[in-house]
């Protein structure tokens, strides 16, 4: 069931209990977890934090902790599957689920006792109504047996009439039931066909903090990072992003007005969040402008920087703006002040001439102390790189904790190491995209495009992680759409496979929806992968919380692909 009063029905319930927090591995979940942790610290609530990477992890964690905990809070996991069936909990376990994955499973919506959803109901959920899906079986049986007992008490003369009537009614009922079941299957199929994402979990928890009047600037900043994560990883539509930014902007102005005063200005060390209409160049303030332009998806795809022509256009672009190459290749901090002052407007003007209308995007920036300025997207890239770092001897939970730590203001060196890792990751993505396009590695299979990264590709280890591979996939599709002449291919979705574990012989497969201006980001590959795996009995693992990312055995790759092609054509 959906929770309406988050303070009364969630926070006050768990405030006196020991809680287990099961948190998925994405940045939005990390930020939501941070906000909840601070709230718990303020009220001295005992909790256990368990990072989970997939459904198996979730089940194991639940089994380990079900003896000690009654209340479980699941962040960014658990809403899109029948949780009670999967975990088989005791009757007194209560699950509070705050998940952005949609569609929410109907059992989770209609269960009143054990599943509480911390999800806003106006979030265009489109949940089918109760009567369309669930029906009390007893009603049908009861009237049937009632008739039979009536039959017994009546004298035998009237029996035949009643028999006929009863038989007819039974046939009617059965037909109605079949119709109802067919309609139910159809409704459920439509409802569960497409996977998409709803409002960020960190915004939900920030609003909880706001209702409790315990919201701080740190929490606001984390909520902004959670929202930006959804935008960077292309999980929500542009409209939704802009709407949520407006909501956050109201909170930001509220916080800024609270503290700033003409005579009593705030210490420089205090955190200041500001609304920025900043450039879409990833990490440009921590890199050189030139590197950032070369390695950001938007500029790289629009200029087609993998071609010689593209490089020339870039040089023209820089010359058009009057930026000397020497300045542009330097670290951003060391660029001349005269250039930095009007940089955004200058770049916007020039990029309009080159067909890049949306070089600027609404976002937020933070600054505390004299040196530290970060944009929300910088933080997202840094934390993602830490979360999915492929260093040896680091388990998933170590990476989780490191990424969680990097979100605090006191761990700046961790954040900077994250930024360095993010730079390497972005460069690897750009090089892979360039090589894939130049060697025509993307093949049209009919209903979709397909690309396979060979084992020997440089940096292929980075792409054994789901988020990095998804990012590569999206950039690749955008680049492909820019570079191909085939009009039909521009509207196709992309399926990408990369080696995950060479020893075990598994590949990770990701499917993303087609690239379009008005895309609603709804992904149908989850169901498609399931059906294809079933029909070919391929050895697959649908472990990720995003159903469009699966692991597959390398040998089964070709038959799985064929099944997918036949399924989707």
């Amino acid at each position, binding site marked *: 069931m959906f929770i309406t009063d988050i303070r009364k029905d969630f926070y006050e319930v768990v405030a006196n209990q020991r809680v287990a927090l099961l948190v998925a591995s994405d940045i939005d979940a990390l930020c939501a977890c941070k906000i909840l942790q601070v709230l718990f610290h303020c009220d001295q609530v005992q909790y256990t934090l368990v990072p989970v990477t997939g459904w198996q992890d979730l089940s194991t964690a639940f089994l380990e902790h079900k003896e000690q905990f009654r209340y479980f809070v699941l962040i960014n996991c658990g809403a899109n599957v029948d949780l009670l069936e999967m975990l088989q909990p005791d009757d007194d376990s209560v699950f509070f689920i705050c998940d952005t994955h949609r569609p929410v499973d109907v059992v989770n919506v209609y269960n009143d006792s054990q599943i509480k959803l911390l999800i806003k109901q106006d979030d265009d959920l489109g949940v089918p109504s109760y009567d369309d899906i669930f029906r009390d079986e007893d009603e049908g049986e009861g009237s049937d047996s009632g008739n039979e007992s009536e039959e017994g008490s009546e004298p035998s003369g009237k029996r035949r009439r009643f028999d006929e009537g009863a038989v007819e009614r039974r046939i009617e009922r059965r037909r109605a039931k079949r119709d109802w079941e067919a309609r139910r299957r159809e409704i459920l199929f439509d409802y569960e066909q497409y996977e998409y994402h709803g409002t960020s979990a960190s915004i939900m928890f920030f609003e909880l903090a706001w209702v409790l009047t315990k919201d701080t600037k740190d929490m606001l900043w984390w909520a902004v990072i959670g929202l930006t994560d959804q935008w960077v990883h292309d999980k929500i539509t542009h409209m939704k992003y802009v709407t949520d930014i407006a909501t956050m902007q109201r909170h930001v102005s509220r916080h800024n007005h609270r503290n700033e005063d003409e005579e*009593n*200005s*705030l*210490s*420089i060390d205090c955190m200041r969040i500001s609304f920025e209409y900043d450039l879409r160049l990833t990490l440009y303030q921590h890199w050189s402008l030139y590197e950032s332009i070369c390695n950001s998806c938007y500029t790289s795809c629009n200029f087609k920087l993998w071609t010689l022509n593209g490089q020339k256009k870039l040089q023209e672009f820089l010359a058009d703006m009057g930026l000397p190459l020497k300045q542009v290749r330097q670290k951003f901090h060391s660029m001349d002040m005269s250039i930095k002052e009007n940089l955004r407007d200058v770049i916007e003007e020039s990029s309009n001439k080159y067909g890049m209308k949306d070089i600027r995007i609404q976002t937020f920036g933070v600054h505390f102390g004299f040196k530290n300025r970060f944009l929300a997207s910088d933080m997202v890239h840094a934390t993602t790189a830490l979360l999915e770092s492929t260093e040896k001897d680091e388990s998933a939970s170590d990476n989780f904790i490191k990424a969680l730590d990097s979100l605090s203001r006191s761990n700046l060196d961790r954040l900077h190491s994250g930024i360095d890792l993010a730079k390497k990751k972005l460069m690897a993505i750009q090089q892979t995209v360039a090589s894939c396009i130049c060697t025509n590695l993307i093949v049209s299979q009919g209903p979709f495009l397909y690309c396979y990264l060979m084992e020997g590709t440089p940096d292929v280890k980075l792409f054994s992680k789901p988020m990095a591979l998804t990012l590569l996939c999206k950039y690749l599709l955008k680049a492909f759409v820019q570079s191909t002449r085939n009009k039909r291919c521009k509207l196709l979705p992309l399926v990408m496979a990369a080696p995950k574990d060479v020893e075990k012989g598994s590949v990770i497969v990701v499917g993303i929806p087609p690239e379009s201006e008005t895309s609603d980001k709804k992904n149908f590959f989850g169901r498609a992968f399931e059906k294809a795996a079933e029909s070919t009995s391929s050895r697959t693992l649908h472990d990720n919380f995003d159903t469009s990312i699966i692991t597959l055995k390398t040998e089964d790759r070709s038959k799985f692909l064929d099944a997918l092609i036949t399924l989707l054509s």
Partner: protein
Amino acid sequence: MDPSEVEFLAEKEMVKIIPNFSLDKIYLIGGDLGPFNPGLPVDVPVWLALNLKQRQKCRIVPPAWMDVEKLEEMRELERKEDTFSPVPSPYYMELTKVLLNHASDNIPKADEIRTLVKDIWDTRIAKLRLSADSFISQLEAHAKLDNLTLMEINTIRAFLLDSLNCMYKLRSNLQPGSSKKQFTDY
């Protein structure tokens, strides 16, 4: 003594806070505190104020001496005098550090206050070093130490005592028969 011990002692000082919760009077070993009512100022020890502030349950009111003009006057006074002038609070350095680290959003002009307090501290430490130097070089027997705070004494204690010890050993070696060979450690 460790500087953190001095800071620990400093946390017993009282400071005014404005809580946002309500609680009846609490009876602790060190004394009674409260009652706490939202919006009404109450005096509590610094350790409790910091804990409540970190849990976002109160707002700290800066002490009366933590004001830019008063501190500027004190700094001027300190620079003029040769001896140590009266100090705003016996734990001014620790309180400044602790309050500005944790509650700088409640204290107006926090950066200037930090600079002013540091200036006062530097002047006093310079005077202390000068007087310790003259004490040793002129072999004086006693010195006047009024208006020194525990933190300042603590910075010089180890060095001064060790150096006096060394001086004593050196001096007793120079006069062989006169003193009994007793070496007491301070």
